[in-house]
Structures are given as C-alpha cells and as structure tokens.
C-alpha cells in the first residue's frame, strides 16, 4: 500500500508532536503492509504553517535515521499539502513547496470554497503543467455533485479521499457519497491524512474497499503507482 497524505513530520504543523509519535505510526503502517509513505506537512499561510522545505528536510533526515534504527522497511518521501491561494503558483515556482512526484501537487481548500475557485485552481495549475491532487474532497461543502467531480477530472485534477471518511467518521451521507464516487471510478487515491495514531487504519480501509468492491479497486485506490512513476 501507498499512503500519499500524512502529517507525520513533527514540529511543523498540526500533525505528530514528536519523533516518537511519528515512528510509532510508521511502525504500525509497516506492519499493515504499507511500502511507501508521503509526508505532506501543511503549507498554509492563514494557519501559520510556513515551514520551509530546507527546515522540513532536516527534520525528515532525522526521522529517516530513526526509522533505520528501528529496522523498519519503508520508503519515506517528503512533499507538502498546499493550501491553494493566489500565491501558490509563485510558491511552486520558487520551490517553497514540493510535489509528491514530478508535477503532482497535493492541494487543499477551505471547506466552504466555491466550485468556481476550485475549478480556477485546477485551470491555473494545469495551465502551468502542474498536476493537482485535490485532498479529501469529501470535505468540501460545495463539491457534492457527481458532474462536478467528473468535470474536475476532465480538466486535469486527481481526486483523493480520506480513509476515515470512507469508514464513516464524517457520517453516513459522506460514506455513501464516497462509495458512489468509487463506483463511478472517480477517485484516484485513498489516503490516511493521519495526524494521530490510529491502529490499522490503512488495512481497515483496504479491506473495506476489497469487500465492498473488489481487490482490483482496492489496489487502484491504495496502491496507485502513478505517484511513484513518471506520469
């Protein structure tokens, strides 16, 4: 499995508080069969999450050393979850924020963001040959029509959903919405967005999808290889 969205880099956002917490969660993920984890600390001006890539990298190197010490067989990657704003294109250009792979950037919006602004973000990013992955789209109040998701994909967006939402943590309606999206093949990634320890979250999600849909679907959503290879 591949987890493309986590907050496991300590000290820089609202994720794990220290290295120990991070190692604990990573260790649990390894035991579930996760092979790749993308650490995606927030880059979010309004919440003052503005840690530079260089600073993140130092913490990341230390974390990697601790992982090696624990003999954990896992590949860690450092990127960002970017709160989209009118500065984002500049931030990308100046390399203040990092993609998950090549040009694949994880971006998020406020829960009340309008469809116009979300589509605008996708248009602007693709115009610059960046490929946006829209994080936890189940959270956006104005993004609740199948046609809108189809439209966003058509103009170049990738869609990510959180496991906890699929498992019912945001209520039955959100769960049904996500299942409908999976049925319509509109989701590209399911990820943990993990901030705190939750045992077996990844494998629970995987098994749920495998049971409700198929192994092939679970593989596609939890093991989407495009994040590792050149798109």
């Amino acid at each position: 499995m591949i987890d493309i969205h986590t907050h496991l880099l300590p000290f820089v956002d609202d994720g794990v508080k220290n290295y120990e917490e991070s190692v604990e969660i990573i260790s649990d993920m390894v035991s579930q069969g996760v092979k790749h984890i993308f650490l995606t600390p927030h880059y979010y001006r309004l919440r003052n999450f503005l840690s530079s890539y260089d600073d993140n990298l130092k913490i990341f190197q230390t974390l990697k050393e601790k992982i090696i010490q624990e003999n954990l067989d896992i590949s860690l990657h450092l990127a960002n979850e970017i709160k989209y704003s009118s500065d984002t294109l500049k931030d990308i250009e100046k390399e203040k924020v990092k993609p998950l792979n090549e040009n694949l950037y994880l971006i998020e919006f406020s829960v009340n963001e309008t469809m116009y602004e979300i589509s605008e973000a996708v248009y602007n990013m693709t115009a610059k040959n960046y490929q946006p992955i829209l994080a936890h789209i189940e959270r956006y109040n104005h993004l609740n029509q199948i046609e809108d998701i189809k439209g966003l994909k058509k103009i170049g967006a990738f869609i990510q959903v959180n496991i906890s939402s699929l498992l019912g943590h945001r209520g039955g309606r959100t769960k049904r919405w996500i299942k409908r999206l999976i049925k319509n093949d509109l989701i590209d990634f399911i990820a943990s967005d993990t901030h705190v320890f939750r045992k077996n979250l990844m494998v629970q999600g995987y098994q749920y999808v495998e049971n409700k849909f198929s192994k092939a679907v679970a593989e596609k959503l939890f093991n989407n290889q495009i994040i590792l290879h050149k798109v």
Partner: protein
Amino acid sequence: MEFFQYRNVVIETPNSPEAEAYRKLELNIRLQGIDQKIRVIQTTSPTPKDGKTTTAINLAAVYAERGLKTLIIDFDLRKPKIHRAFKKANEIGFYDYIVENKAIEDIIIKDESGIDLILSGKHITSPHIVLESKKTQALIDKVTSLYDVIIVDSPPVLSVTDAFIISNLVGGVIYVVAYNQTKKEDAKVALQQLREADINILGSVFANVDPKLTGYSYNYYYRQEEE
C-alpha cells in the same frame, strides 16, 4: 460552466461555417462604423453562459486574422474566463496594474495566436468601483494608442452593474444571446436596460444555433437590434 471548454473556431477550424459567421460579424461591425471607426468593443449578454466569452475570443481572432493588432481585456472581474479560453494561468493582469501599479506593458500577455491579452489577475473586491476609476480610463486610453482593436469581455447585464460601467469606456457593445437557452424575458429586460442607459448597441449575436434546425449553414447568425 465551470468546466466549459472554450473553442476558438476561427483559429481551430478557420474554414468552417462557424468561423465564417464570425467574419460576417466583424464585417457588420465595420459597416456600422464607416464614418467613425469602432475600435473598443464590449461583449455582454443577459445572463451567464450565453456566449459572451466565446464571441469575444472568436471575434478577436477574426481581427488578428486580418492583420490588425488585437487585444482582449477580461473585465469580467468577478468570474474571469479569458485565461481559461487561452489556456493561461490567471497570474498577472488588471489587478497588478490597479493595485501594484505595474506598467501596462508588464501586464500584457502575448498569446501564440497573435492576440494579446490583459487578464484579470488576482481577485479585486468591489470591481464596479475600480472600473469607474480614472486609472481604468487611463488604461483604455493607453491601449487604444497601442492596438488597432480592443475586445472587452464583461459580466452579464442582469447579474451586476459592471457591464454598464464598462460600456462607458467602449465604442460599442455586442449583445449576445444563446438560441434556445437564454430566457426570452431575460433577453428583453437586459436589452431594455441597455437601451435606457443609452448604450451604443452595435447589434446582437444569436449564439448556439443548430444549423440543422434553421436550415442555414451558419451556426452563428448576426442580426440588428433584436426585438
């Protein structure tokens, strides 16, 4: 509308009946301005999705085709679309001129089609106030000296007052309605408002016409002063 793919038929399929219809439109505008050339042209419509932006970009392409130095300004500052039609990021534009005091030359974007663009740039609060400013007038004056023709895309008439404010800056307005789509009542009311404001309506464009239904081989049909 959020995912509408704008087509510039004059550029993409220059020999099509659709492209020909836009050339007819340009000719008709030219005939209107025999004595006094109309060089700054605004496109507007009653409601969203009627075809303003599509008309603007295709008309601009006709002028560019004729060898005229052509500029499009996106003055729909609330929901700008021109950058989408030209596959550009809406990074720099009118906002930078108004707020950051950038020079006009620095905000003009050159497109491969030969048409130059002034996009909206970052979001401007209270666009109707900005559009009425001397700075905006100065921009129009300057670009009028730099270009042969300027097309100005604007918001729909019935949504906000911006279209009226913009009409004070231009030589004439093209009123776009979508066949079988724009509500007749909306089209009438908006046109009435434009007339009452004494705006120079060059004429109207009937967008979205299916040639199979009308029997014409043109998709876009130009007509004088719609009733």
